[in-house]
């Protein structure tokens, strides 16, 4: 996967360390001599610091990683990517301005649920087409939204349905030409949302209609990219009951979607302590002075219990996903601080 694929999409539940694993995969590919880029969906400040960058930005920045290949990093700056897209694709500066000033556009480009996914696809296509990178590793939003991501192309297509745009774009004066049902629906929506809102939505759709061709072109390209044999999906999970449940569901959905699951990475696994129980028991028996002694003994019991629980979670994942290579990354002592920490994770992914 690290040597051959051109796009690696990391998906998984929230809080499992997807961003770190994505960056480690890119680093591992760069160590193999490839020009690799990791693309995150948020500012990932800890990652930026670990890479020696002041911050991750909307453009790709090269990291001084000392690898044979090249490591670059960037993030999806939603607002910037949307604005750039609109400016690039609009037939005239006036149309671009109309869209950029529209309150619906402004909300869509910053906080509207799902807009991250749309713009991620757009950015992904742009980067994949640029030819600057041999492989792009994409960090995605947590799994509740990972499917919004995969479905984004279809959803944009649906939003851009000609009839719908036509009806919403014509504005009130031309409703007469709409069907009786459509008129009825529009009147109800107007009463619920207020006249001004409907006018804003209408303006938005008029302008969007002019961009529809370009957007549809992109969504076709994105759909092809996500199903390309050179695209691999990596499921990032953690050793927790709810995370394993969620990961199994996610893997099933990925398969149903025709995506190929290349590997599962279980991050932050507690390894079994490398000390015989009898040795530990003897050491604790020799200590006096409760409660300090019992506090220490409890930490040993914690370590044993955590390792046993993690092993059972790993076994459940293995059983649920037969045939998918599983990599366990042991828990580190601290959060991500440096390239060395990232290299430690990368070492477990080969």
């Amino acid at each position, binding site marked *: 996967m690290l040597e051959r694929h051109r796009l690696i999409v990391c998906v998984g*539940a929230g809080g499992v360390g997807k961003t770190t694993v994505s960056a480690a995969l890119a680093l591992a590919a760069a160590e193999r001599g490839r020009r690799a880029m990791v693309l995150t969906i948020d500012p990932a400040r800890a990652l930026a610091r670990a890479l020696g960058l002041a911050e991750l930005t909307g453009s790709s920045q090269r990291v001084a990683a000392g690898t044979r290949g090249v490591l670059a990093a960037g993030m999806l700056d939603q607002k910037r990517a949307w604005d750039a897209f609109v400016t690039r694709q609009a037939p005239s500066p006036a149309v671009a301005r109309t869209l950029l000033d529209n309150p619906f556009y402004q909300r869509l480009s910053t906080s509207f649920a799902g807009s991250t996914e749309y713009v991620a696809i757009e950015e992904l296509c742009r980067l994949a087409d640029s030819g600057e990178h041999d492989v792009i590793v994409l960090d995605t939003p947590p799994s*509740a939204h990972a499917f919004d991501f995969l479905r984004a192309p279809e959803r944009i297509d649906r939003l851009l349905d000609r009839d719908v745009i036509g009806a919403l774009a014509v504005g009130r004066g031309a409703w007469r030409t709409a069907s009786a049902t459509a008129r009825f629906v529009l009147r109800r929506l107007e009463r619920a949302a*207020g006249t001004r809102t409907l006018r804003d*939505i209408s303006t938005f759709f008029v302008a969007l209609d002019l961009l529809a061709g370009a957007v549809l072109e992109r969504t076709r390209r994105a759909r092809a990219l996500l199903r390309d044999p050179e695209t691999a999906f990596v499921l990032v999970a953690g050793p927790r009951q709810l995370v394993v*449940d969620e990961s199994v569901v996610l893997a099933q959905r990925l398969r149903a979607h025709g995506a190929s699951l290349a590997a599962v990475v279980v991050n932050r696994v507690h390894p079994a302590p490398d000390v015989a129980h009898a040795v530990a028991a003897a050491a604790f028996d020799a200590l006096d002075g409760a409660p300090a002694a019992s506090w*220490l003994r409890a930490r040993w019991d914690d370590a044993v219990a955590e390792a046993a629980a993690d092993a059972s979670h790993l076994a459940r994942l293995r059983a649920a996903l037969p045939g998918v290579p599983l990599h366990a990354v042991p828990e580190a002592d601290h959060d991500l601080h440096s390239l060395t920490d990232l290299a430690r994770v990368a070492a477990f992914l080969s």
Partner: protein
Amino acid sequence: MTRRLHFVTGKGGVGKSTVAAALALAAAHRNARVLAIELGEPAGLTRILAGSGIDVATFDGADALAEYLTIHLGRLARPIVDHPLYTAFVGAAPGLRELMAIGKIRDEFALHDRWDTVVVDAGATGHALEHLRMPSATGEAFRSGRVHREAAANAALLRDRARCSVHVVATPEQMALREAAQLIGDLRQLDLATGALFVNRCVPPAPAGVDALLARIAEPTLGELLRRARDREARQQRGIAAVEAELFVSALRLPQLREPDGAAQAAALARCVAEVA
């Protein structure tokens, strides 16, 4: 019995659903009528509370909106909801689905006298903020009409400290604590009814004399393991103290549990969160 609406949020993977379930269980223990709510689709909370006897509901914004229209328009609603224009409108209107999910929670909590305690697993930070921010944001985007009135009513409830609490869950790691501090700052800025800061999976504080005993452990691997646990505990105390000082809050420390099972964990945590529930 005082009635209260709890929202639980925090970074992904910190144990929000478990803490939400513990709050629900604690309220049920003092005989409150409890409803637990998940947003989106059934997930962690539904699984943890299965078999507990507590009612769990899943609210989806798109469904809530369709239901809302059906209540207000009767059988006229069907052609609207089925029409592609409606789909486009719901897709394009900012935060309408999020708003409707909060609206449905408000209906359950405030309109009927069916529940004393309603606990909402509001999802991970970004997504939860989207929901919580929506009432005021939507109120601005929709300047008149029913949606505007709906948004105003939701915003009022989320700000009402006598009836509502938005709790934040973190773990003692640096990144999770940072995100929690940021979230509490955002909640305060939105003037929402900020509740407790739960720090989940805390190692109990090391008693005096631990360091002296550590020096006496001869087995090197065991010594290393215990020293790392001691360092982690010290880092954790410092991290929590820093957030407490920064935000003028007192964090509620929840213990690290050995039960691997979510339901058992929630049952064990119920005692610790009883004062908040």
